[in-house]
């Protein structure tokens, strides 16, 4: 969990560490006032029995509460992941449910995107690991949010801009990673 401290030092938005009790195996982290990105985006899933917070009917776009467009949110996601990767941390489980949008404290500040759940994260400088990280997110988008291609494209655009030089190699590797898997292409 030392990532959390390192990451916040590198300027990545992560939950603040409030308390650590190593002997008891306890970690206290900050409560983030806001909502998970997964809930903010249209999902195609059959509503689970618990329902999504009871009310959130489809006629009302939950993003309106944050005064943010889908595109701007995707931009925030891209930038935040790029900051994390620039610090050479790989999240290991990037999904829209592992990102939160923090409600702005004052009316004139903008909402912040916070990355959470670093349970599977590790330190790596490898292009491969970062590309797989992005691929996991792409798959999470595709499987939970229908018609998500344009959304993920704008995540990548913001990510690429922030990554700078490293992006060329990463993009090429991401294309490679996408080709993996069975029975996928027309080959064989």
């Amino acid at each position, binding site marked *: 969990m030392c990532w959390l401290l390192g990451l916040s030092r590198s300027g990545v938005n992560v939950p603040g560490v409030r308390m650590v009790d190593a002997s008891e195996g306890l970690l206290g982290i900050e409560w983030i006032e806001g909502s998970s990105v997964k809930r903010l985006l249209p999902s*195609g*899933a*059959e509503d*689970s029995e618990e329902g999504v917070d009871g009310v959130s009917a489809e006629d009302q776009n939950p993003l309106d509460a944050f005064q943010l467009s889908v595109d701007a949110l995707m931009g925030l996601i891209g930038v935040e992941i790029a900051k994390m990767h620039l610090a050479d941390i790989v999240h290991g489980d990037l999904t*829209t449910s592992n990102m939160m949008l923090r409600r702005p404290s004052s009316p004139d500040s903008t909402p912040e995107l916070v990355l959470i759940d670093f349970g599977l994260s590790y330190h790596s400088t490898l292009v491969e690991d970062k590309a797989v990280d992005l691929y996991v997110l792409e798959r*999470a988008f595709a499987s939970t949010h229908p018609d998500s291609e344009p959304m993920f494209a704008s995540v990548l655009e913001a990510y690429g801009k922030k990554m700078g030089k490293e992006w060329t190699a990463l993009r090429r590797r991401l294309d490679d990673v996408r080709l993996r898997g069975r*029975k996928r292409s027309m080959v*064989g």
Partner: protein
Amino acid sequence: MPALLKQFGPLKNPDHPLLALGLEGSANKLGAGVIKHAPDGSSMVLSNVRHTYITPPGEGFQPRDTALHHRQWAFKVIREALDSAGISLSDLDCICYTKGPGMGAPLQSVALIARTLSLLHDKPLVGVNHCVGHIEMGREITGAKNPVVLYVSGGNTQVIAYSRQCYRIFGETLDIAVGNCLDRFARVLNLSNSPSPGYNIEQEAKRGKRLVSLPYTTKGMDISLSGILTAIEAYTQDKRFRPDGLPKFTDDQDIITPADLCFSLQETVFSMLVEITERAMAHIGSKEVLIVGGVGCNERLQEMMGIMARERDGQVFATDERFCIDNGIMIAQAGLLGYRMGMTTPLTKSTCTQRIEIKFDRFRTDEVHVTWRA
């Protein structure tokens, strides 16, 4: 058989009882089964017959010989399925067969049988995706509503969740299937192929005590198994390996037995499967896991999945070998659901596909339109 009532979704209750025959033969099992959907929305398994092509220890099954086996046993198996259901072919509403994916030659043999029966008795054909068959049968038997599905068999390893009339693949194997990995290691150890190599690995593993170190290869939501197979095979060349499982001399403590290797292989690959399933559950927010496919009847896998699900306050649904291992009834179930939604396969389209032959006829699990769910 529990009679389950379906309340929601686009599927209407039939106005008279419907009967379907399902024919399955995508791998080394030939299955035939008859299912009945009653007007009250319940369904009932009338018969479920299977014959497995078993090869000698150390050998796998070849497509040609498997196809021959299916052709030789087809009449007997179908006759038995009809007799124990107490119906004749003319009572059927449709004939369902496995369209793919699977091994080419066996699939073709069974498709040919299905076509012949359909023409002889003037019954509509329904081609069924094998994986969707597994999922629908699992849902029907266990009553799971909207589970994350772990589909593990000799040919497939996928974590699947339902969304917008498609079963979407969250994670899958990048190379070989988990059943394939276990079966091939059974061959290395020369374990019997009867009733199945995976079953014998499971029995052997119960006596294992030593956990040898193996690579743990999850890649994002996907897993890779071929390297693990190579690594575990390498242990059989190790100096400490005792093929008979017995120490060579009295002080021979530091030994690795076949049972230890089976145990280690199972623990490692099942942990990986549990991990990717848990991640899919966390992301979707589902508390139900359904395990289907031949490896799904492995009790150790069910146990490990159960521990994970309990920690998440969830529940595991699994079936026994009658419905886990390839069978005809699951093809009948998925086919009849499709038939009730008006999906039939005209004779000229009643092909089968091993994997993806042409660009426009892809047949991954996530390319099937599931019309009968909301």
